[in-house]
C-alpha cells in the first residue's frame, strides 16, 4: 500500500522530477565541462522547462483531484496553474539571459541553470503545499535561490548590494513567518492547513494569539508579494539585480506569493457554506478589512513614489508594487470570482511586465543605460521597440484595448460584487496617477529628439521573436478574453 502511494505521488510531481533532472545534468556539466562557455547549459535548461511544461499540461488535462505524499501537497487546478506559470516564466528568463549583455561575461552559467531550476521547484511546491512545513520548506527553497540569483554578477557592486539587502530583509520576514507558524501549530496541534480550520470551527483558541500569528505569517507572505509595509526591499533589489533576474522576481516570485497566500487563507481561514456558493471567514481575525487597507496603501505608495524615479527598472519596481495592490483587492473579498480574477490578472501581468522588462534589457544592451532620459527619441532609433514598449506600458496602465484593462476590470467587478466600493474608487484614482509616469516614457520615446550621432538599435531574431510572443497575448487577451477567463475560472478550484 505504501509503495503504491509513493509511486502515485511521484507520478503527480513528474514536472518537478524533470526539472530536478535538468538541474542535476547542469551541475554535472559544470564539473565536467570547465572549458565550455555555457551555451549548452541554457539548452539543457530550456529542454528541462519544455519537458516540465508538457508534463504539467498532461497532468492538467487528465486531472483527478487528490493529495500526494500523505496530504503534504494537493494536486488541483489551482496548483497546476501556478506550476505552469513557474516553468513558463523560467523558460522566458533563460531566453532573456541568453540575450543579456550583463550576464554575457558572468561565470558559472551551468550553475545558473541549476539554481533557476531550484527556483522553479520551490515555486511549484509553494503553490501546491497544504501543510505549514511544506509551505516553509518550499518558500525557503525559492528564497535562497533568489538571493543567489540577485547577487549573481561577479564584481558588480550594485548586484552584491542588492543581494545583501534582499537576504537580510528576506530572512527577517521568514523568521517572523516561522514564529507565526509555530503559534498556529500551537492552536491547531497539527501542521495541516485543514487542521487550523478545524481549530477555528471548534473555537479552541485565544483571540490575541490568532491575531499575532496571522500578522506574522502575513508578513512572510507579504514579503514575496511586495505589499506595504514589506515593500522596502523591492526598489533596491530590482534595480541592482541583473535584468532577467529582476523580471523573475517581478513575475514569478510575486505569483508564488499570491499562490501561497490564496491557498493559506482559502484552506485555513475560510469555509464554504454547505450547499451554496458562498464562503465565510471562520477565523476570529478580520483579515479581509486588513487586506483591503493594505491594498489601498500598497497601490497608492507604489504609484506615487514611481512618479519621480529616473531609473526605469526602479520605476517598474514601484509599478509592480502598485500592481500587487490591485491584485490584493481580489484577496480582500472572498468569492470564487475573486480568486479567478487574481489568476487572470496574474496571467495578463505576466505577459505585459515581462515584455516591458525585456525591452528595458534590449535597450540597455545597446545604450548601456537604464535612465529614462536615455529613452529620448527611441522611436527614431528603433520604431519597433518603441511601439512594443508603448503597448506594454499602456497595458500596464490598464487602457483598453490591451489585456491590462481586462485584468483590472475583472478584479474591480469582483470587489464591487461584495460592496467594496471605496477600494475600487481608490484603485481607479490610482490608475489615473499611474498613467502619468507610464506616459512620461512614451512621451520621451516619441516626442523628444534623440541626442546627436545615435545609431539605430539592432534587434536580433531571437529577441524579436520573444517580444512578438509576449506582444500577441497582450493585445489578443484585450480583445478576446473569454478563453483566458474560463481557464482562470477553472483554475481557481482548490482541493
Amino acid at each position, binding site marked *: 500500500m505504501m509503495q503504491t502511494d509513493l509511486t502515485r505521488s511521484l507520478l503527480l510531481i513528474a514536472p518537478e522530477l524533470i526539472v530536478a533532472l535538468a538541474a542535476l545534468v547542469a551541475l554535472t556539466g559544470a564539473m565536467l565541462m570547465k572549458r565550455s562557455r555555457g551555451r549548452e547549459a541554457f539548452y539543457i535548461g530550456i529542454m528541462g522547462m519544455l519537458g516540465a511544461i508538457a508534463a504539467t499540461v498532461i497532468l492538467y488535462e487528465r486531472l483527478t483531484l487528490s493529495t500526494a505524499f500523505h496530504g503534504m501537497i494537493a494536486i488541483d487546478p489551482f496548483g497546476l496553474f501556478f506550476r505552469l506559470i513557474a516553468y513558463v516564466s523560467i523558460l522566458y528568463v533563460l531566453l532573456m539571459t541568453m540575450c543579456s549583455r550583463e550576464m554575457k561575461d558572468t561565470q558559472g552559467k551551468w550553475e545558473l541553470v541549476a539554481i533557476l531550476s531550484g527556483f522553479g521547484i520551490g515555486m511549484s511546491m509553494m503553490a501546491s503545499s497544504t501543510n*505549514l*512545513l511544506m509551505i*516553509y*520548506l518550499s518558500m*525557503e527553497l525559492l*528564497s*535562497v535561490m533568489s*538571493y*543567489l540569483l540577485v*547577487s549573481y554578477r*561577479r*564584481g558588480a*557592486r*550594485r548586484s*552584491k*548590494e*542588492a*543581494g*545583501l*539587502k534582499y*537576504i*537580510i530583509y528576506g*530572512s*527577517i520576514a*521568514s*523568521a*517572523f513567518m*516561522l*514564529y507565526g*507558524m*509555530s*503559534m498556529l*501549530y*500551537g492552536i491547531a*496541534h*497539527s*501542521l495541516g492547513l485543514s487542521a487550523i480550520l478545524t481549530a477555528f470551527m471548534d473555537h479552541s483558541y485565544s483571540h490575541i494569539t490568532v491575531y499575532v500569528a496571522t500578522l506574522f505569517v502575513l508578513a512572510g507572505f507579504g514579503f514575496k508579494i511586495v505589499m506595504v509595509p514589506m515593500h522596502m526591499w523591492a*526598489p*533596491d533589489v530590482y*534595480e*541592482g539585480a541583473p535584468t532577467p533576474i529582476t523580471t523573475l522576481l517581478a513575475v514569478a516570485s510575486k505569483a508564488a506569493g499570491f499562490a501561497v497566500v490564496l491557498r493559506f487563507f482559502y484552506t485555513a481561514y475560510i469555509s464554504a457554506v454547505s450547499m451554496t456558493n458562498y464562503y465565510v471567514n471562520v477565523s476570529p481575525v478580520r483579515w479581509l478589512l486588513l487586506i483591503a487597507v493594505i491594498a489601498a496603501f500598497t497601490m497608492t505608495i507604489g504609484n506615487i513614489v514611481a512618479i*519621480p*524615479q*529616473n*531609473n526605469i527598472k*526602479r520605476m517598474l519596481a514601484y509599478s509592480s508594487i502598485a500592481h500587487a495592490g490591485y491584485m490584493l483587492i481580489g484577496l480582500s473579498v472572498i468569492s470564487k470570482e475573486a480568486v479567478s480574477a487574481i489568476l487572470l490578472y496574474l496571467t495578463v501581468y505576466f505577459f505585459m511586465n515581462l515584455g516591458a522588462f525585456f525591452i528595458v534589457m534590449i535597450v540597455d544592451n545597446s545604450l548601456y543605460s537604464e535612465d529614462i532620459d536615455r529613452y529620448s527619441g527611441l522611436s527614431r532609433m528603433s520604431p519597433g521597440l518603441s511601439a512594443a514598449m508603448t503597448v506594454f506600458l499602456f497595458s500596464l496602465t490598464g487602457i483598453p484595448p490591451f489585456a491590462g484593462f481586462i485584468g483590472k476590470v475583472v478584479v474591480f467587478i469582483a470587489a464591487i460584487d461584495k460592496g467594496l466600493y471605496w477600494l475600487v474608487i481608490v484603485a481607479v484614482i490610482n490608475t489615473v496617477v499611474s498613467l502619468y509616469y507610464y506616459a512620461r516614457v512614451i512621451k520621451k520615446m516619441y516626442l523628444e529628439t534623440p541626442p546627436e550621432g545615435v545609431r539605430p538599435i539592432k534587434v536580433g531574431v531571437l529577441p524579436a521573436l520573444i517580444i512578438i510572443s509576449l506582444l500577441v497575448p497582450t493585445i489578443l487577451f484585450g480583445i478576446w478574453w473569454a478563453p483566458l477567463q474560463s481557464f482562470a475560472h477553472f483554475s481557481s478550484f482548490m482541493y
Partner: protein
Amino acid sequence: MTILPITLTDYLILSGALFSIGVFGVLTRKNAIAVLMGVELMLNAANINLVAFSKFTGPGVDGQVFALFSIVIAAAEVAVALAIVISIYRVTRTIDLDKEDTLKG
C-alpha cells in the same frame, strides 16, 4: 522548598523573550553579521515554540520534525548570507549596512 514543574507557559515566555531580543538586535545593529545573528535568535525562538507545543499538546511529533527542518534551512540560509557578505566585502571593504547605499531614490 518545592521545585515547580516546567509548564508550557514557561517555554513560551522563554521563546517570546528570545524572539524580542532577536528583533531588537536586528533593528539596532549596523553590522551585517550581527543582524544575521539577530535573525538566528528569532528562528530559534520559533523552534523552541514548535518543540514545546509538540511536547505539551497532542501525540504527534510534527513540531519537532518542523524544528529539525528549520534548523537545517537556517544553516543553508546563513551559508548563502555569509557568502554574499564576503563577496561584498571584497568590493567595498566594509560590512556596515549604513554604508551600502549606492542604490537609492
